């Protein structure tokens, strides 16, 4: 198998579409014997992102942990290793930054076509559109 996708980034927001993205990523990871990095970005209004206390929002952190765990279980069922990661900030920006960071060695970004903030854009979610434009790595949009 010539496919060289070792590390797949899957941004999750708990929506149905992101779960579909995860399923696709698991499928690809099985083919290429890769690992998955799940990234959840909790959207924080500008000023809190700078303020250290902005990260200490415990009530939503438990929610984040919950669906990262769900993702882990889902991947483990198929025998794929999944590492979860949670950040606070602007979703689009932080996902793109995470993907472009050389330290993370991401080979592919798999993203659902629409997540939570869908009402405004009818066809493609705004976050996926942002990531699509800004990431320097290949992007797979799952519809």
């Amino acid at each position: 198998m010539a496919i060289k996708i070792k590390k797949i980034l899957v941004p999750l927001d708990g929506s149905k579409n992101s779960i579909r993205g995860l399923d696709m990523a698991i499928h690809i990871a099985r083919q290429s014997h890769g690992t998955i990095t799940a990234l959840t970005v909790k959207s924080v209004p500008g000023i809190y992102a700078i303020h250290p206390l902005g990260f200490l929002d415990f009530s939503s952190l438990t929610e984040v942990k919950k669906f990262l765990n769900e993702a882990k279980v889902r991947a483990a069922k198929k025998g794929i290793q999944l590492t979860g990661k949670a950040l606070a900030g602007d979703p689009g920006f932080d996902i793109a930054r995470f993907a472009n960071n050389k330290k993370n060695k991401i080979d592919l970004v798999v993203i659902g076509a629409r997540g939570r903030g869908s009402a405004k854009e009818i066809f493609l979610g705004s976050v996926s559109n942002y990531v699509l434009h800004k990431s320097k790595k290949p992007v797979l949009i799952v519809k």
Partner: protein
Amino acid sequence: MNTNSNSFKKILVPLDGSKYSEKALQRACEVLNAFDSKIILLYVVEKSLPINFLDRKVYLEMVRKFGHKTLEKANNVLLKKGITAKIFLKEGNIVKEIGKVIKKEKCDLIIVGNRGLGSVTRFLLGSVSNNLAQSSSCSLLIIK
């Protein structure tokens, strides 16, 4: 997870002769090997551009020739790897024609380069790939 619905049975690779589309083709080969799927190559002769500087017929003839050449080249690349491809040459609006082929052939995945020869309406992403991302009904892999 239903594996059948997730595997890529048919992959569409729209070509335009640019080095980005060649890159997309390379990546398509990798995916092909992994998923054991069929590939469809497509070249669309853009007809909707208003062209006045040359005789329209002559211009279209030139583009058609270029299209055949591009497809042949791509096919040769695939043949060397032992892959047989379906080849289409369509005329009309690029995005619309791609959409039609997807519907007709029931493709599961489109692989495009992030920029082609098309005019750059968006600075970072080519206009065609952007349009596809917005409007296509199947999954899309954008090679950077």
